[in-house]
């Protein structure tokens, strides 16, 4: 399992990635993250909302209240144009980190 700090650091790009696919609600969003990570990123459900609120506050996400298929009130989240831009930027940054780490580990394996 990744450490708490890593989970926290990756929460934003993960949420943005899921929302890039389209509008969704909190429970489904968490389900997708769990699926994508194969259960490795096990967030508590409560921790999703502070991140979503922060993204909303920063103008990357908007939300609206609607009704679920069962007729229950449900809040749906969507990326804003700013959110799309930030998603692209974050993707590039994380790709660079990923690329650098892969190289570093390859070198580490060679010298070991």
């Amino acid at each position: 399992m990744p450490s708490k700090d890593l989970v926290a650091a990756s929460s934003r790009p993960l949420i943005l990635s899921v929302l890039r696919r389209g509008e969704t609600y909190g429970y489904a969003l968490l389900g997708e993250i769990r699926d994508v990570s194969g259960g490795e990123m096990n967030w508590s459900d409560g921790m999703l909302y502070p991140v979503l609120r922060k993204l909303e506050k920063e103008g990357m996400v908007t939300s609206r209240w609607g009704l679920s298929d069962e007729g229950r009130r449900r809040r749906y989240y969507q990326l804003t144009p700013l959110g799309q831009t930030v998603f692209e930027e974050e993707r590039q940054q994380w790709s660079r980190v990923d690329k650098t780490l892969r190289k570093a580990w390859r070198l580490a394996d060679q010298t070991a």
Partner: protein
Amino acid sequence: MASSRPDRIEAAIVSWRREFGRNGAIHSEDLDELADHLRDIVEMRLSAGDTFSVAEAFARNQIGEADELIDEMKLVRRPPSYYRRLCVGLAAYAAFQTGIITAVVAGLSMTAYLYGIKPVQATNTYELSLLSVVAGIGLIEIIRKRFQLRRGGLGITHHRSILRTFGPVLGLIVILYLGLVFGDFWRWWLVSAGQFSDNRWSGFGWVVLLGLGGPVSALTAATSLHRWHPSLQGKFSGR
């Protein structure tokens, strides 16, 4: 009669909401969303064959700790910085004014007493001073709590250390008190020695208090500022 499954779920949600909704730190809309999670998880676990108590415990665990979420939400909902700066300014101003008000109230009371108007006993000025200091500190704490300034104020609701919490407050009170006693004693001594008339020095307490109370309060406000505002952190305390 055993209650139905939906009733048990709703009862569990009510109890859960009470726990998470305390202090009003988590907005009711956020609680609504999380309550939906709780409902969905419990229903899913019940369908999978869990007993109700197991399903509820699983759902609560999945949602997480109330304290942790409350702390996170407080961070997110912190007011914007310009608003915080305004609050800091108001709080600092209140701290300074406390000293001035203390000085004026005590000084006027003492002067009135010495001129023979005697609206209050001279010794009451000490209590008035203490009362206005405590009222000022209370005001700052209310501002700090209201606007969720995590650091600062005089730290009454933040720091665990008693000395650190009450140190500045006690220091302020002791200095003001000593100033009053010292001022009174000096005046008494000069008048007894026949060097000055009683009336001439009737405002002595006022001078001492204005001289000490104002700067001490301003100093208290300034040292609190480094805790209130991130840009000032470390400037006064060396942290």
